[in-house]
């Protein structure tokens, strides 16, 4: 990454304009060209330094249901359960964490009913209880990482 890559990452975590030629507007701010901005973003995505470029939608405000859930999975059974959980399209993220509750995943569904059904299926297929922890209040989301 060079200076311009860092500048693009830092600038575009704060927002991207909605106008006819948004890349040109960003380019003017960063003293470069429209084409340079477009190709840099493409390369940063390809190299995995950026995981996304575009609008971030708020699931609940679209009527969807989003929840964090955890399970206590012994090491010896971890791979089997990971396979089952990851195979479910409702699971958006899944992380291994150092704790007795060792698997933490985010369930994203379009309705609360689908959410309950997905939890039930996970419990049935894995044989472990799910600790469902839907947020009851959100205080902040969206840190900007300094590149």
């Amino acid at each position: 990454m060079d200076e311009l890559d860092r500048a693009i990452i830092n600038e575009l975590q704060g927002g991207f304009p909605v106008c006819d030629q948004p890349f040109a507007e960003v380019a003017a701010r960063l003293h470069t060209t429209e084409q340079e901005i477009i190709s840099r973003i493409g390369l940063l995505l390809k190299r995995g330094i950026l995981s996304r470029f575009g609008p971030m939608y708020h699931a609940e405000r679209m009527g969807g249901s989003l929840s964090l859930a955890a399970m206590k999975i012994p090491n010896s059974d971890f791979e089997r359960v990971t396979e089952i959980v990851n195979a479910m399209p409702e699971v958006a993220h899944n992380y291994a964490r150092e704790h007795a509750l060792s698997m933490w995943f985010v369930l994203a569904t379009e309705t609360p009913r689908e959410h309950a059904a997905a939890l039930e299926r996970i419990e049935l297929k894995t044989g472990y209880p799910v600790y469902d922890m839907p947020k009851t209040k959100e205080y902040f989301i969206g840190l900007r990482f300094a590149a």
Partner: protein
Amino acid sequence: MTTEASLDEIDRRIVLATQSGLPLEPQPYHAVARQVGIAAEEVMVRMRRMLESGVIRRIGVVPNHYALGYKANGMTVWDVPDDRVDELGEKVGALNFVSHCYCRPRHLPDWPYNFFAMVHGHDRGEVEQLVRRIAGLIGDADRGHEILYSTRILKKTGLRIGG
């Protein structure tokens, strides 16, 4: 609690066309408009409206924080009195190193924590230092806390709605 904004069929088509990303071309909203079958101006008006109503949190880039060197990612969980969680949430959520901050239900007896704050650092030492700053803010309302470090990303696809 969050309120639900009403999306019509055209909004939904815009969501479907953009949820995996914006096209990398000089006029990305025009490209979306062609895909959805409406005028570019209409796409922009609707996307601005969704930004305003919070349906779109923001438009921009999401860096892979591991790739930027933030290798220690700690989910910090706290047991705080229910009647103080909102006040503490506002304070802790305002810290510039906290990326997500929520109140969640406890699962007693084995899960006493009702307050979550995600903290990212270059190493665990840095995370622990940041957690001490959170503990300082929470003060005597801290009835116990833990840091759960992620050891592996098992899946990360982001949110998707169906077509």
